[in-house]
């Protein structure tokens, strides 16, 4: 995974509440069985004039020349709520977004960001608003600098500390692969599993035959209740 220590770049304000992952990458833009080729579909519903089309909507922030090189998004509260599709983060990363600054995130989206080296920064909404106003006055002249090691967002005279849970911070700073990390605990997983099997055998017994089993006796299946 790509590490994140510090980054400075143009920030684009997209200050709406509840920007959902359907808006970040509409499902119709997830065309291939792949994590790639998604950047073009980023915010497609807002970015292009017609659904499925590719004619840029000049009004949309990322189409405005002063924001074309944006690598940071300034979002609204509950950013990335909704669907769990990791495609939203893959699309952002492919477009060149390295960090998002918002007052809150959808929980699955937040983890997806961390797993892909995109930094989700939490600042109070009033601070994000102040930052957006500063940036809007001249986006190129006012790049936003984010330092994860120090936990700081800067832009001209604007300087605010931010906090991040230590696990996510550690993963991002070092670009770690969580699967490799967890596999180091394999002995503990095996031990736990054995103990769980001894105590809750019923949780495991139905699984013995699953892989080979065909259809269930569905007529006996109770799909009713009073």
């Amino acid at each position, binding site marked *: 995974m790509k590490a994140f220590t510090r980054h400075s770049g143009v920030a684009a304000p997209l200050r*709406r*509440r*509840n920007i*959902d992952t*359907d*808006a970040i990458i*509409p499902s*119709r833009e997830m*065309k*291939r*069985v792949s*994590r790639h080729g998604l950047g073009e579909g980023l915010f497609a*519903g807002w970015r292009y004039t017609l*659904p499925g089309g590719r004619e840029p909507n000049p009004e949309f922030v990322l189409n405005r020349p002063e924001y074309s090189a944006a690598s940071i998004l300034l979002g*609204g509260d*509950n950013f990335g*709520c*909704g*669907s*769990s599709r*990791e495609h939203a*983060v893959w699309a952002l990363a492919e477009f060149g977004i390295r960090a998002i600054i918002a007052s*809150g995130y*959808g929980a*699955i*989206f937040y983890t997806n960001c961390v*797993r892909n080296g995109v930094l989700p920064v939490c600042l109070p909404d009033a601070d994000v608003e102040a930052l957006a106003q500063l940036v809007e006055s001249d986006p190129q002249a006012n790049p936003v600098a984010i330092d994860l090691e120090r936990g700081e967002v800067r832009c001209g005279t604007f300087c605010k500390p931010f906090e991040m*849970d*230590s*696990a996510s911070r*550690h993963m991002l700073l070092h670009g770690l692969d969580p*699967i490799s*990390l*967890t*596999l180091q*605990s394999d002995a*503990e*997983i095996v031990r*736990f*599993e054995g103990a*769980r099997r001894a105590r*809750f*055998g*019923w*949780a495991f*017994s*139905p699984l*013995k035959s*699953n*892989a080979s089993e065909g*259809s*269930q006796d*569905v007529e*006996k*299946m*109770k*799909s*009713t*209740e*009073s």
Partner: protein
Amino acid sequence: MATTGASTLFDKLWRDHAVCELDSGETLVYLDRIFLHERTGAIALQGLRAAARPVRTPQQVFCTMDHIVDTFPGRGDETLMPSGKDFIVATREETAAVGVRLFDVDDPDQGIAHVISPELGLALPGLSLVCPDSHTCTLGGIGALAWGIGSSEAEHAMATSTLRVKKPKNLRVCFEGALSPGVTAKDMVLHLIATIGANGAAGYAVEFAGSAVRALPVEARLTMCNMAVEFSAISAVIAPDEKVEAYFHGRPHAPQGEDWQAAVEYWRTLRSDAAAQFDREYRIDASTITPSVTWGTSPEQAVATAGQVPDPDCIADPGRRAAAQRALDYQGLRPGQPIDSIAIDAAFIGSCTNSRISDLRAAAAVLRGRRLAAGVRGVVVPGSRGVKRAAEREGLHELFTAAGFEWRDAGCSMCFYAGGETFGSNQRVISSTNRNFEGRQGPNTRTHLASPETVAASAVAGFITSAAALADMGEPVQ
């Protein structure tokens, strides 16, 4: 976390799945079941293959075809979604290669993941279950520890049978008192989200409790927990009781014999201790809840069906005001407009929120002896083939088709737009689904979320209305 030694239900489920505490402050959480679907499952399995990582325990993993598969009768691998077939074929190949049980397009048990997992007894009280789909929290309704994840996390889950998770805080929402007749679990949860906000449970696992929740049938509890992610909860849970035991007894994959006895004995311990401490609590008087519907593009933008579209100028918070204005523009509505003056173009009954047999029965009861209003399109999509068969045994399909509805095969269908089927631009849909986001059901499609009863009543009236209000308009002609 409780400091008194007393535990919440969520704490108990967490404790019984905690492999170890990690230095990072996360817990390594053991997973009993992992569910995949064709929208993202193949990508996760390909990712594992590319990294030369085996699936640790393939018997724990299940996969269904629900998101992209067509729901037209007689369907095959072809879908209206361009390239949809690629996802279906890749999913079939990848699951076969690692020995994962697939509920394929033509499998008699195929259906939406969150519908078939309890229906088949693959999800059970006290088990942990994850799926790369945000509505996995549905399974909290039976007392499972269940939550939605992304693709990278799905790879982690399959490679290690665990996830690294920071423990969420505990929130309890108590619905106390009796519901008014005609008010459903969908109305309860829409009311809750409208009252507290779509981000109300961010950072929390929520327990739904109180006498009105205990009174709910099992399938209604699944509906309630389904919407927990629209409340920003990481997960939701309802204490399993004798109704849940009765629901699972005899299900195909449910434990049997001595295993069943042992399971039930454990399930009876799955409730919050009386002295358990919650980090936050809300109390809602269930008797004040009325049939509800969303007017905007966030589930928090909901009102009573007997109410009016709100006026953004009366909303104090600038962010919410701007969002309301934007939503009204998208939805083509005026401030102050009575809800029952909103004419609809289509009615959709389906999705992991409301496509179970009890949902179809409730909608059918409203439709009996009635027909769709002129010009309104109606679609019913059972959540699983099991539900479809059960409905057909009861003759519900005939009732739906007599009323003018299309009767479909099982899947997610038009709950969301994947590039294939849609209701169309500027079409207004009353829908039993869970998301009313811009473009969710198709570019510029306008979605209003409601219970199956309200969807059926609105379909007959031609405008948004509750079943009770429809009944007041006159008896159906038999």
